[in-house]
């Protein structure tokens, strides 16, 4: 069912990941932030989000870029659920047409 090696790997992965979730929180906890640090904290969510999806901008062919462009336009215009539906459907269509 589960081997020792696998259990150990999973336990250490879990510890590594939980530590990333705690380190930043504990470092800033109850610290008064100055204006510059506040500016950094305000920019941080966007920096992380755009970084995570960055490979989409360079990984694919023209079809993938077209799907991404449609998704961006939808995201500017619509709320979460319609954007996700437009994005998934148009990406599926584009991929089938591009083969």
């Amino acid at each position, binding site marked *: *069912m*589960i081997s020792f*090696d*696998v*259990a*150990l*790997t*999973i336990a250490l*992965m879990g510890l*590594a*990941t*939980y*530590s*990333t*979730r*705690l*380190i*930043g*929180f504990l*470092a*800033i*906890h*109850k610290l008064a932030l100055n*204006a*510059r*640090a506040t*500016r*950094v904290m*305000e*920019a*941080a*969510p*966007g*920096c*992380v*989000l*755009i*970084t*995570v*999806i*960055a*490979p989409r*901008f*360079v990984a694919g062919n023209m079809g993938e870029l077209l*799907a*991404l462009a449609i998704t*961006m336009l939808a*995201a500017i215009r619509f*709320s*979460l*659920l319609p*954007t*996700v539906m437009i*994005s*998934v*459907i*148009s*990406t*599926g*269509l584009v991929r089938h047409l591009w083969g």
Partner: protein
Amino acid sequence: MYSTSEMKLYRWAELKRGIRDAFPVIIGLVPLALVLGAQASKKGMSTVEVSLMTALNYAGGSEFAAIELWSSPPNIAVIVAMTFLINSRHIVMGATLAPLLKHLPFRKTLPALFFMCDESWAMGVADARGSSRFQPFSFHYYLGVALLLWFNWVAFTSLGALIGPALTDIRAWGFDMAFPAVFLVLLRGMWKGLKFALPWLVSLLIACGSWLWLPQGWFVPTGALGGLLVAYLLGGDR
């Protein structure tokens, strides 16, 4: 002042609002979870092992990387180092939550942080920042999003491991584009003009370059830190 029962009702309503808002995110997560489970079982992991990994680690990007690197026996050092590197963005994410959660005790915040993923964090922060009026971070809204997403992730990765590799072709259908879609909508919600967005652009460019030219996984810390550095440099002149 509110009575205890009114507070309870309010918290319950916020929890339900979080659960409801998380459903569009699940459209993208379910197929991804099925693919991860199927690929893991193809690499020889049992269903119990897959459930345990996704429940205890609970960070999809690092789990895909671990499966990619999986061997029998697994190379523990490489997999754990890779996991830390890919999830290093959580350090920044946790730091942004600290000022929003400082009124709450550790016995609430530390367990809640275990369930922090890109989506639950971003939705919690966007919920607090997005509205024009001042609205504090809603802890129970965050919990609603976070707990539903965790349960969903563990359930569907396990199901993927059970029903197996027949599912791998699901990626061709377009569901994976749900993530950029969710993230772009959240980014639009945080948009405050071009100058404010300059660090984001820098993050995007550095992450793209790192993805193309650096070893696997490095684009996450380089992209995030590059943008933060620009925000720091711009910070003086507000």
